[in-house]
């Protein structure tokens, strides 16, 4: 007799629908699972046999073949156990077969028949809803996560017997109490809000460090607000102790809240890493990997299914402190995500594409000792400086739209009044973003930083003085074509922050002052 059940497997960030077909027929007793299953799925045989017997059902002493379709997709993880077990029961007549077509099953089996939560419940729920399943049955511990998806009935099954009851038209188990307080452990600085009601991103997400803590550094603060408003990649440089890191950590607090689509994406990524997710993320991710990170750690792919920092920073901020200390290979690995907003991981036995559209914020010392330009303290020789510049230069700097230099004397004034607060800055950022969204509605980008050359021509109208300045800049060889585009994008954002539809000379002047170009001591060698 043949029975069919539905479940899902996770391949990178994609969730694949898997149909489990179980055939029970006369022959030598045995249990075979076919269909590109990995070790965890093959071991399911033993778990399922024991679970069925320990739950008081009969395990058919016949020839059982379980096929996981489609046959060309690799199936990983123990989440398919529950579906296979139910299909075996249905094929041997212990469970009505019709209901199995409408309920997706997702969970790992324990030997006593209990259902354990498996990684990626949110992604599975999302896929089940799109696949048109009526309900999704899974373990109580991952039910809160799955319930974040609208339009899908989530049924709790804590035991194989409950699954049989649900598939026979009975009720599911009770939803367990949410273990919110204990889930906080290990969440680290990951942006998310456990108190929010679980519906998309309406929390203001203003928890965390506030921009008002920064004293002085008016222009650096301004640069950060510009970067946040236009989604520009930014570089902060300055001597140690001037507040580069402090400033960068506050960027997340002035970014607009996640849209509901973005929130689902971000939460799905969290869910994939095996972290408990009880509510949709409301704050943008802020990832700050240490500079000893490897290329595999940054983009992912160290082992099957491992997710890199750039993916975890998707829709948020990737902060690289001490940029010049990162290894060359690591920084090179950033090129694709910065260019395409995604990473494609190809390894011998798997390949996957992850979304990775983030805002890059980097901080660096101006020279190896850190004190270049700070009085006469710098003791670096020309060779040291050249080495330092070489590490920073190249494709990465090409992708950075604006640079701000922090200086010590300004940072040292603790009595300076707070210039702004995160709430105020965020309001301006939101205004500017709304203006951008209205202007870029026809194009498939959301922020000025992602405008291509054609959009620049259409959306950046300079006044006469600005045009003259731009001509002078290229005449003097101060701007390459690419540099000019970056300056125009930043100028567009500055105008947006001021609420101006036209890009004025003063916007262009500020953008030019923020351009990341070498200094007198840096650009003299040809």
């Amino acid at each position, binding site marked *: 007799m043949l029975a069919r059940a539905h479940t899902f497997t996770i391949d990178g960030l994609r969730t694949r629908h898997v149909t489990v077909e179980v055939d029970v027929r006369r022959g030598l007793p045995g249990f075979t699972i076919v269909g590109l299953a990995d070790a965890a799925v093959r071991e399911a045989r033993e778990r399922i046999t024991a679970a069925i017997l320990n739950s008081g059902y009969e395990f058919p002493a016949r020839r059982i073949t379980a096929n996981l379709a489609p046959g060309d997709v690799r199936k990983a993880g123990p989440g398919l156990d529950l579906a296979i077990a139910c299909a075996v029961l249905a094929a041997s007549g212990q469970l009505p077969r019709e209901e199995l077509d409408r309920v997706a099953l997702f969970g790992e089996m324990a030997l006593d028949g209990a259902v354990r939560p498996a990684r990626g419940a949110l992604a599975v729920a999302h896929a089940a809803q799109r696949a048109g399943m009526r309900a999704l049955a899974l373990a109580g511990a991952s039910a809160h996560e799955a319930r974040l998806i609208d339009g899908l009935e989530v049924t709790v099954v804590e035991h194989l017997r409950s699954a049989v009851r649900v598939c026979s038209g009975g009720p599911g188990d009770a939803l367990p109490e949410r273990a919110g307080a204990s889930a906080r452990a290990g969440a680290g600085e990951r942006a998310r809000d456990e108190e929010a009601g679980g519906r998309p991103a309406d929390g203001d997400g203003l928890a965390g460090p506030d921009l008002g803590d920064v004293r002085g550094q008016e222009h650096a603060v301004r640069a950060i607000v510009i970067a946040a408003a236009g989604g520009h990649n930014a570089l902060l440089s300055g001597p140690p102790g001037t507040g580069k890191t402090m400033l960068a950590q506050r960027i997340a607090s002035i970014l607009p809240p996640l849209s509901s689509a973005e929130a689902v994406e971000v939460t799905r990524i969290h869910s994939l890493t095996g972290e408990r997710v009880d509510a949709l993320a409301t704050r943008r991710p802020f990832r700050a990997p240490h500079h000893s990170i490897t290329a595999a750690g940054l983009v992912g792919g160290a082992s099957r299914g491992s997710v890199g920092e750039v993916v975890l920073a998707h829709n948020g901020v990737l902060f690289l402190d001490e940029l010049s200390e990162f290894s060359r290979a690591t920084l090179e690995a950033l090129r694709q995500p910065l260019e395409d907003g995604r990473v494609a991981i190809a390894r011998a036995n798997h390949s996957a594409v992850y979304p990775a559209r983030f805002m890059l914020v980097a901080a660096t010392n*101006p020279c190896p000792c850190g004190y270049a330009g700070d009085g006469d303290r710098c003791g670096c*020789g020309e060779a040291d400086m050249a080495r330092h510049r070489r590490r920073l230069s190249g494709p990465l700097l090409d992708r950075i739209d604006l640079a*701000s230099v922090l*200086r010590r004397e300004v940072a040292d004034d603790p009595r300076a009044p707070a210039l702004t607060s995160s709430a105020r800055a965020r309001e301006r950022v939101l205004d500017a973003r709304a203006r951008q969204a209205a202007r870029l509605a026809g194009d498939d980008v959301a922020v000025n930083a992602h405008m291509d050359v054609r959009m620049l021509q259409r959306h950046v109208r300079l006044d006469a003085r600005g045009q003259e*300045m731009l001509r002078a800049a290229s005449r003097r060889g101060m701007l390459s074509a690419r540099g000019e585009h970056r300056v125009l994008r930043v100028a567009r954002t500055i105008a947006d922050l001021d609420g101006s539809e036209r890009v004025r000379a003063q916007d262009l*002047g500020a953008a030019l*002052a923020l351009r990341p170009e070498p200094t*007198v*001591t840096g650009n003299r060698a*040809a």
Partner: protein
Amino acid sequence: MSAAGRTGGEPGACARCARRSWLLSMLSGPLDCCARDRWRLIELLALADEELLRAVAGTRKADLHAQYARFGSEPPVEETRTRMRETDAQGGIEADVETICHHRRDYPHALDGPAAPHMLEVAGGAARLAELASAPVVAVLGSTRASDYGIEMARGLARGLAASGVSVAGSVTDGIAAAAHAGALEAGAGSIAVMGGGLGVACPARWRSLYERVVHAGCAVSELPHDCAGRRWGQLASARILVELASVAVLVEADETAEDLFAARLARARGRTVAAIPGRVTSPLSRGTHALLMDGASLVRGPGDVLELLYRCGEAAAGRRSSASGSAWAPVSAGATASGEDSQSGLRRELRLTLERVGAGCDTPDKLTRAGVDAAEALLALSELELMGLLARGDGGRYLPTAPSN
């Protein structure tokens, strides 16, 4: 061969001068030991061949003496020159390295002193060297560890001088020297690079492209054979060629160390006019220049002051300069060398005020804002002044006024 050398018609050096150059390269090791005492090294280099052998050759004296005696009988000069061409073919650069000796007519007259090099290898052509050395030559000296201020001053000084028809000379090392060559190139003029080792090996890799541009527009000279690494002594020895070529030596930025001040003191000892650009008294990188100024060096604020010194020196430059500045030496990059006074008087008021503020120390956007300028206006003014070439970006987010070009 030597007869041909004296007429100056044929390229190449006479055998005696080539032998001297060979001897120096053979004695490179012992000379490097002697270089601990800079002034003794200069004295040694003034010795005749035999005396020099006796003074420094040590245990290899007999062997070297025998080789020295045999030198004329073999054709090592031709050999060297052939080998040189081979390296050129491989490297693909400096195709026209010429060798000249002080018996030739096109040998720079300025180098006729007692300790002058006997032979020079010239990349870029002996004719180019003669042309550059016939104009007044200014040596730009300074520390290899320079601040952005020093770099900017050196570059502006060289640019202004080169645009006025004066030849700029300097070594090709970090800091001030490299900035001076870059400045001369900006004015579209050639400069004289005095190398501290053989032309094939002396240039540090990071200045390779600058060196090639200098050779393309001007020339590079060295008294050592093509592939002889000059080491430390070669660098010191090249300082004497540099200051002797020049009628005025300008120290742009230097600490008060024997190392940084050596070339300037040598210039004074050789009777050249020594000048210095002042810096901030609190900066260690200006201690050397200030010490020199205290000792009576002339104070230089820009190219104009150096030209003044050249006239006073009685150089026969006046005629040449006035004829040259109109045509061949006219600045190429428009705007870059625009006269500071003229462009400043034509400035809008807010730009002039900003420029003055930056010059007076309000040199970052933050400082300007705290001095009461509106943030947006400050950035606009700074960017506009940068576009005009009146400000440049220094280290640490500061802006610095570019060196006046007159």
